[in-house]
């Protein structure tokens, strides 16, 4: 699954960057375990150094009525669908990989920001913060293990 989006994170008013806004394409890749259930909903979002929600990067899953099960993201946004306008896609099957390419601002890296992935599947556990990983230039390309649904997550610049 390959998606390309421009300036997905330019949406955030919470971010004001002193430097000229520079952005580069970043590919997020999350591979799910064979958890033996229906397709999983995933929410990918960013928090700052104080754990405050900054903005959303991607939401895999189409029905807003199930968003509440992505509890970390849902509690942070109140399920506000304007947070994910244009950055949604299909839910992801057991054992499959979600791959998304986004333009992320340089200023998001090495500045204490963390990327979160919440996951949930029908009749199974809710898994907020299945992945929590600091956004750093050095961390790019290094796989991280998720807690329940996600076997491996990487972001590549």
């Amino acid at each position: 699954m390959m998606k390309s989006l421009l300036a997905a994170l330019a949406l955030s008013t919470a971010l004001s960057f002193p430097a000229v806004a520079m952005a580069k394409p970043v590919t997020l890749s999350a591979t799910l375990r064979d958890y033996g259930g229906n397709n999983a909903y995933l929410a990918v979002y960013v928090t700052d150094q104080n754990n405050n929600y900054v903005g959303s990067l991607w939401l895999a899953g189409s029905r807003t009525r199930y968003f509440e099960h992505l509890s970390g993201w849902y509690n942070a946004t109140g399920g506000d669908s304007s947070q994910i306008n244009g950055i949604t896609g299909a839910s992801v099957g057991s054992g499959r990989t979600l791959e998304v390419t986004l333009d992320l601002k340089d200023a998001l890296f090495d500045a204490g920001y963390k990327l979160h992935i919440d996951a949930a599947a029908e009749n199974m556990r809710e898994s907020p913060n299945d992945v929590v990983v600091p956004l750093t230039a050095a961390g790019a390309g290094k796989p991280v293990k998720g807690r329940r649904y996600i076997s491996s997550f990487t972001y590549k610049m």
Partner: protein
Amino acid sequence: MIRLLHRWPALLAMLLVLMLSLSGAALSVFPAADRFTAPQESASPSVADLASRIKAEHPGVEQIKRAPSGRITAYWFNGDVAEAATIDPATGKAVASADPNAVQRWLTNLHRSLFLDDSGRIVMALGALAMLVLALSGSLLVARRAGGWRHWFSPLKGPLAGRLHVEIARIAVAGLMLSSATALWMTASTFGLLPDQPAALVMPADVSGNTGVPVATIDFLKATPATSLRELSFPAADDPTDVFTLKTNAGAGFIDQGTGGLLAWKDLTGWERVSETIYMLHTGQGAATLGLILGLLALGVPVMAATGTIIWYAARRGRPRITGNVPLAKAETVVLVGSEGGSTWGFAATLHKALREAGHTVHAAALSSFDPSRLGHAHRVIILAATYGNGDEPSSAKGFLAKLAAMETPPAAQLAVLGFGDSSFPAFCGFAQRIATTAAHKGWTQFLDIATVDRQSPQDFARWGSDLGTLMGLPLDLVHQPVLPAAAPLTLLTRRDYGADVQAPSAILRFSVPKSSLWQRLTGTGFARFEAGDLLGIIPEGSTVPRFYSLASGASDGFIEVVVRRQPGGLCSGQLTMMEPGETAQAFLKSNPAFRIGEGSAPVILIGAGSGIGPLAGFVRANAQSRAMHLFFGMRHAASDFLYGEELVQWHEEGKLTSLVSAASRGKRPHYVQDALCAEAADVLQLIAEGARIMVCGGREMAAGVSETLGHIMAPAGLTPAMLRAEGRYFEDVY
């Protein structure tokens, strides 16, 4: 119309409906199994008790869920490893795996979406819609067939496939309606078409910032019984801004992890409650017994699909194929058919073929589909109409007269009416006559006067065809030989002779019932089903034209019995009365719904003379429920042609026959059956006042005499035989 609404969704969506019902029936087992296997709360602990027990066993617990079956599942982390288990609520210990059942998941995905996500959901919803339409149209058909909703469970008649179909339907239909209607609601809910979306609960901005309140001490959780729990999520230990999230069957809320205080609460909306109830009714989750019942009822669907297909196929086969039927909009000539048993369709097919070969464009359809505003460019409308009962609409003409009567301006196309019937019945071609009269009254031009075809006479039909051809300016040679049902050889078992000394040689002939195939039993063809009063068609040797005799026995008697009077020079009666046991005759069965005593407990007056006693004796023989039956029987001489004399005495002793009054036309005091009626006039009138049904069988003159006599008897009560006929209480089988 309703029949079409039943047939086409069934044939088109059969595969979907079958898949829905079979997978649904299989799924219905799971909630019940879950209810039995899940450890249940013995006392009823509060959520606080339950959560603290689990927390004690699994300190890393993140979430507790309770299924409607009572199954409690906990999710926790053991170091870095995510674990989950079914919990015994009494101990908080893990007792079983929490992995969802793979078979149930597979079946669920098949059932709701054919594994095709949204497009599959829409397809399956259409299947559910078809099921709902079938249930509704089927209910109307059952009610119509039974004669009203009050008779929903009345006994059924007809071929096995039809009875099985209705028998299952009237039990299962309520469950199928519930299942299909709730399925449509759930699909609408899934697609966000209903205002039942969960309202967002806003995370409170100000929390205490403290952590560590023991879950056992939280007042709100202490006050919430575990049976109302849906789920409880614990706050992340390292995040002081996080909270407890509680969902119950009443609503959802947040609880502070420092103080244990309730931070926010939101009740379920009315819509959410309705949707949850509908979900429970559909899935049986939380209503396992109902689920099992619905699953069981869904198993009726495959049987109804099979029997329904047989009914449809048998009806189709009973009707001749009309090839080259032009669409209505393009036809010059429209042939409309009102047929009860299907034989009129045979004539229509012959007419259709002859017109088509003469270069005309012809559209043939059932009379019930008539719409005066949609006749397109048709120049003429030809109606071929049989009659049902006393001038009533036959089945393929239902609603036609009402439409004709409601018509405001007559169609431009001109009309011709041809009636089919049996001239021995009083209302010969009565329905066709009513059509012609009503059409004339409405100012609809008839280019050919109404004509009739008596007893499927090929000559009558050919004569009418040549008149029609002359008017249309083309040679029309209508050769139609009615297709007879396949005849089977019947072996004579016994014969009993009467009446030789009084110049009325008659015989009671008893034949063995030929074996019926399964297909014949399912479709009611052959000799699978018959009752007294039905007709036995016998094809005499050296002829192709059958003669009909009224049956004196039903299938339950285990033999086929008729009474035959030898007619001077009669080909068929001559052969039959010469038969010896062991010999065979070629015969077929013809149902005769117009001569039945019907259901109910009203008394029955049976009036017959000579061989006309046959079906009447059959009614008495079948009267196991001891309904009041009074027989008036006319013969020549009691010593010679008292047909069924011995049995009648025996049936009287068994309570099957209430009274017998006989009349002998020869002897010291000659009198006829009419005289017998006159002698008992007071009793007869009393019986009629009690709602008695009158069944008359015999020669035409005798029937006319009986009708006149009964007219005199009834006159003081202000009644006439015609009124009783109109009420469906006076039936004649005359020859």
